[in-house]
């Protein structure tokens, strides 16, 4: 069973790195959707285990919520926001893409060295899963600062949230149900507000490049 979680954690890490290598907003959304589906699969397997062993179906409910929210609802919302924005391809980055990918690689190494010092995580599989899922958080953060467009930053935020959820689920076998629900509701509120803000920014400045927010508008 552990080997399945190993593979899934690796694939989740991989999807976040592929996200960094993309240029098109449509591909961002697609990759985010795949990553969320992988997370839902992880939660599904874990929930099934806990249902069989302890008879609790908390994690299965969380899994269903992830499928509804992150695989179906939020990508659709993002597509809608994306449809209202004029430019579809992100052209200028602060750094070029190969460099971004290599920096992500550095982040993973950094996480490996910092996590391996935490006592209690030294069991092989747990260590691997926590390293991979913790890197997803940092890569999400890095994705956020490497993109200039507001939509990219929304996706970066969502990836950070995915990373936190995966870290929690791998290291604790599922948080209390009420905490998960609280996080999801916070997240959906944040996404709705951000979506509206992106549309407003686009309307006011004719672009969602956040560098242009420095310009004054009367």
């Amino acid at each position, binding site marked *: 069973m552990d080997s*399945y979680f*190993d*593979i899934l954690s*690796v694939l989740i890490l*991989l999807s976040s790195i*592929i996200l960094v290598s993309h240029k098109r907003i449509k591909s961002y959304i697609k990759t985010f959707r795949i990553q969320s589906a992988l997370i839902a699969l992880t939660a599904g397997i874990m929930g099934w285990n806990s249902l069989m062993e302890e008879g609790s179906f908390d994690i299965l409910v969380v899994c269903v919520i992830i499928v509804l929210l992150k695989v179906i609802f939020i990508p659709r919302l993002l597509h809608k926001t994306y449809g209202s924005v004029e430019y579809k391809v992100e052209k200028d980055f602060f750094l070029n*893409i190969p460099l971004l990918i290599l920096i992500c690689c550095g982040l*993973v190494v950094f996480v490996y060295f910092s996590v391996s010092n935490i006592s209690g995580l030294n069991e*092989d599989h747990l260590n691997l899963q926590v390293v991979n899922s913790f890197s997803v958080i940092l890569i999400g953060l890095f994705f956020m600062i490497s993109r200039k467009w507001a939509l990219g930053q929304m996706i970066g935020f969502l990836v950070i949230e995915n990373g936190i959820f995966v870290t929690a689920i791998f290291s604790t076998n599922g948080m209390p149900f009420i905490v998960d629900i609280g996080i999801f509701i916070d997240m959906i509120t944040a996404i709705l507000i951000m979506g509206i803000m992106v549309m407003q920014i686009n309307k006011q400045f004719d672009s969602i490049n956040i560098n242009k927010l420095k310009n004054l508008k009367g």
Partner: protein
Amino acid sequence: MIAIANNLIQLLVILLLAPMVDGVIRKCKALSQKRQGAPVLQMYYDLFKLIQKESVVSETASWIYKATPYIVFSTAAAGALLVPITTLVPSTQLSGDIILLFYLLALGRFFMCLSALDTGSTFGGMGSSREAMISSLIEPSILVSVFTIGLIAGSTSIYQMMRAMTEVGNPLFHPVFILTFLAMLIIILAETSRIPVDDPATHLELTMVHEAMLLEYSGRHLALMEYGAAIKQLILMTLVANLFLPMDQLISFPGVGAFILSIVLYSLRVIFLSIIIAITEISTVKFRFFSIPNLAALSFILSFLGFLQYFVLGR
């Protein structure tokens, strides 16, 4: 004695199978476009026809131009001697390791670049500069992924690596090997000039890489160059098929039957891989040339992450 016979058989199988791989990929692409397409054996006919024709050599060409087809073909064939197609029978102890294999292929590629520059045509120069760029970009990821597997197997000998992989069970459910497998798939696409990197079917001067280098060749020389490229493609696919999709551990009975069964399974895996490559070709578009560093960086990071996962797992 048996080992030498085995090596000869493996050379023969690779030489015979190589043009068919191309045929399978082309057939898959044709079927996806609802065409009937050329027969699977088309490349054999092409090679046969080309060998009978005389080859035209430019007056300004030096000996490099004439020697290159033979060098390309012979390095590819020597590479085919190094890659075991079955792990049931031990290969000769003379057989070199995987580093030698990749640098033999690089030798052929080096001469190909030189010969394209030799005649002084503009397309040749363009093609060889592009080829040099792609190969230097993809080389780090080749080395890292190969060394990762070598580290786990405890040897750089290809035969030992393949033996070690048969004991892993299913490598695609292992965090290290899935990453190196994906890296190797990108390496195959880049090394054999497949679609995201280079389009093998067009002769459009703006995009061609591999064809630009073969543009001046004709007749027997062209046949040797194309055959060499096909063998190289099959060598890389053999590596992937035997390292990441090993099936020899499933064969429990000894004897000649097991050997034949192993070769049949090997051909099936190669066909499976060529279908995967065909699907990749169908579903992606050719990248802009300056986007290739992104792909190479992705391939590098895949292999590097695989390397890192090995240390995280602590084995």
